[in-house]
């Protein structure tokens, strides 16, 4: 039995499945520019994605790499660096791999393409990220307040938000 197959068995992978580093290699070959794979292990890989490449990469991952499921979408606010990040965790049940994609956005205009048309599960995650961080997801079917009541004018998870009694 080959070494790769042993490792595949260790994480319980089906014979046709691919490990995380194989998937990362495929992505590196397919997207030489715009996508930087920072780390790849057996069941995870981490990538830094340009804003414009996100939808193409997501399409490729969905169509050719069996990523079926968006586990979470979240935001990070970097006040000093004047940028915002959106972090996607996308999972493949077939390959047992979770991919973490990070997209950098300028803080004064945080806009990124929505992946809800590809994976419906991202709908409320993106809505909540907009609700809390004010990151606009272009193409989202219903970008409205989710946890805060309608008419809230602040984005509470931003670092320059001053907490205090409001209600």
């Amino acid at each position, binding site marked *: 039995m080959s070494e790769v197959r042993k490792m595949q068995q260790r994480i319980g992978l089906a014979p046709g499945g691919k490990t995380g580093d194989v998937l990362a290699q495929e992505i590196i070959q397919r997207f030489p520019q715009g996508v930087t794979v920072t780390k790849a292990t057996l069941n995870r890989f981490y990538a830094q994605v340009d804003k414009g490449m996100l939808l193409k990469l997501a399409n490729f991952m969905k169509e050719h790499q069996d990523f079926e499921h968006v586990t979470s979408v979240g935001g990070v606010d970097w006040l000093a660096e004047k940028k915002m990040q959106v972090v996607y965790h996308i999972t493949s049940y077939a390959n047992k791999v979770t991919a973490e994609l990070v997209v950098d956005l300028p803080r004064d205009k945080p806009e990124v393409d929505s992946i809800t048309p590809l994976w419906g599960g991202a709908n409320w995650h993106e809505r909540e990220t907009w609700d809390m961080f004010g990151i606009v997801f272009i193409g989202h079917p219903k970008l409205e307040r989710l*946890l*805060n*009541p309608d008419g*809230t004018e*602040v984005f*509470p998870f931003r670092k320059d*938000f001053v*907490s*205090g*009694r*409001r*209600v």
Partner: protein
Amino acid sequence: MDLRLAPNAIGMTSVEFMAWSTDLMEQLAKYTGIKKAVDKLTAPIWSWAIRNATVPLHFGIACCALEMAAASGPRFDAERLGMIYRSSPRQTEVLLVNGWVTAKLRPDLRRLYEQMAEPRWVVAMGECAISGGPWYDSHNTVQGVDTMMPVDVYIPGCPPRPEAMIDGFMKLHIKITKEMKGTFLDE
């Protein structure tokens, strides 16, 4: 009451006659002391009946709802004191607010309170319902349920034990007994 209308009673419509005679009866009962006497006799019965059926609304918001569930379990058995949970606000008399109230929940909770029939009481259970608790400076938490409705009993604790909750209801019983509300001929 206008007794001068008595000769015209035969010519009244039924609605007019009912209004006139009802008014006559009520004012008679009120000014001759009948209402006072009947209230004195029946008020203890009413208050006994009311305090034995302090039915709380089954509306668990946060972790205090677990204490509420424990209180209705076999160990504490709050049901023997009349605390049987009902799911419809029309059937309940006590609004037991057990947990933080977010800004999004506030209109719905106020609506539940308004849907309950009189006589009704509000019990604020736990720090969150009393003053906001750990979320005292939160952007999205109502700082105490008494900012939006009158509260009768506060049960402190985070969360209060089931005994504390039952004790709060005993305080409510004392309050109901003290009020001793007579309702003879009241709307």
